[in-house]
């Protein structure tokens, strides 16, 4: 079997497994997994910029929140139904990521991290500043009646699970497709040696711009879907914490692997879930586990799998 077929089988298999789990999982884990799939979609978006292009952004919460608020505010204030509201979230994501990319890509390295971090903070403060519309820190709830998409009630756990699965499947397969295309391979080459890529005649700025827009748009879509499925839009999703989360998930799962973001999100979610059942100092357990993992699997879980067993893993 060729590497392309094998990876298609593996990633398709994961989606089929997630589909099947829906019928056997107990309620609690069922709900968790729906949440994990949406957050993993966010991480998939982050991974395209960080894992494949080698640009470390500390401001992805701006994109996640752009999608979430683009969706939520249009429902709340303009009376949009879910479908056009999701489109509004997606478009907001494209606009915000293109705008930030044009500014931040003038820098590189540490300066890029700082510029993205600062713009995300500015976005967070903007949400608080316009509290009259956004309800600031407190946020606002999207009522059950407003969460009916084409006659399907998204507040119902089963529907919610399927919606999350559809989003995740699209993001996962889009990422897999992207990294096997010449565009994605050029991004990897930029990560490895940008100057060499430029001297092969590629416009590296245009490639990085494209990567950041794709990454930001996927993140924004995940944010919009998150708000719609769980019925809440709040400023905490724009805080710096939500910029660090996808970085951690991707690092743990394996940066620059298609499966890594999902594995990392799943692992971290249950690590915190498990340790908070033992002690209130659950971050201590989580922290130790993270240190151990970084020491012994510096390339993340999927990265180690690729290094040791499956070298064909995309």
């Amino acid at each position: 079997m060729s590497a392309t077929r094998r990876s298609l089988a593996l990633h398709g298999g994961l989606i089929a497994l997630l589909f099947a789990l829906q019928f056997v999982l107990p309620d609690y884990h069922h709900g968790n997994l729906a949440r994990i799939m949406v957050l993993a979609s966010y991480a998939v978006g982050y991974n395209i910029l960080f894992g494949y292009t080698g640009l470390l952004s500390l401001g992805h919460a701006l994109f996640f929140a752009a999608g979430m608020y683009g969706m939520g505010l249009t429902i709340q204030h303009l009376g949009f139904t879910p479908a056009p509201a999701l489109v509004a979230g997606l478009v907001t994501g494209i606009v915000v990521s293109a705008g930030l990319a044009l500014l931040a890509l003038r820098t590189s390295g540490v300066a890029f991290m700082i510029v993205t971090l600062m713009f995300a903070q500015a976005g967070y403060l903007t949400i608080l500043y316009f509290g009259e519309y956004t309800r600031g820190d407190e946020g606002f709830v999207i009522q059950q009646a407003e969460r009916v998409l084409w006659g399907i009630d998204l507040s119902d756990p089963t529907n919610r699970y399927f919606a999350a699965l559809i989003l995740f499947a699209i993001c996962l397969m889009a990422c897999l497709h992207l990294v096997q295309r010449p565009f994605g391979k050029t991004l990897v080459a930029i990560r490895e040696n940008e100057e060499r890529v430029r001297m092969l005649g590629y416009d590296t700025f245009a490639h990085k711009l494209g990567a950041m827009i794709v990454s930001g748009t996927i993140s924004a879509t995940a944010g919009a879907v998150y708000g719609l499925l769980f019925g809440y839009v709040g400023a905490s999703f724009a805080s710096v914490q939500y910029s660090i989360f996808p970085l951690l998930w991707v690092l743990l799962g394996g940066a620059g692997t298609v499966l890594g973001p999902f594995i990392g999100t799943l692992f971290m979610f249950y690590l915190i879930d498990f340790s908070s059942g033992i002690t209130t100092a659950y971050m201590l357990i989580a922290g130790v586990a993270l240190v151990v993992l970084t020491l012994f699997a510096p390339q993340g879980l999927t990265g180690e799998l690729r290094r040791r067993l499956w070298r064909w893993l995309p």
Partner: protein
Amino acid sequence: MTLLSTRGLSKHFAGLRAVENVDFDLPEGEVRALIGPNGAGKTTLVGMICGRITPSAGRIAFDRADITALPAHRRIRRGMAYTFQITSVFARLPARENVALAARRRLRGAEADAVVHEALDRVGLLDRIDQEAGDLSYGHQRLLEIAMGLAQAPRLLILDEPTQGLSESEIAGFTALLRDLAGRTTVLLIEHNMSVVMETADRVTVLDYGAVLAEGTPAEIHENAAVQAAYLGTG
């Protein structure tokens, strides 16, 4: 026809005149060697030609068009290829992907594959196609650089000290490859190995203290007293 020409090209680094007022013409199809002592400004001159370094003054024309203001990637697209003096391959990618990146800018799919195989075959690395570039020996990485240059099918191939670190047999292979290219591709070759220069170059330009000291056939340069003084010192 002149493929590449520079007029009054200069580069000053905070008072250091690395390249000073260089007028340089390279006719199409010629193999030109650029020689000179260390620090003569060879890499700086070539860096300005391919767009890695912004000139302090002067113009550069390629294929009759002024390219002085073009960014590097646009110059490369017009048909230049540059191989780095300090090996700059994609260490964590296989040899195949290294060359494929060079080929894919203009070709896709099976056509690109064919060019990759041909380029690796010509430098003798076809049997290492799936090896990671970082695992190749230094000499093989130099050859991989050259394969990346070939895969671009450039009109002007700029080679910055390609034989540095190659074994005698690899140098012989490289010389044969260069002779094979001669006439079809214009080559600008920075080279310290004088026997390679003598065997392959149509003409030689000598650079010293950032300025052109002499230009002529390899035999003329070999006899030139000023060149000998520059290389050996006047005591």
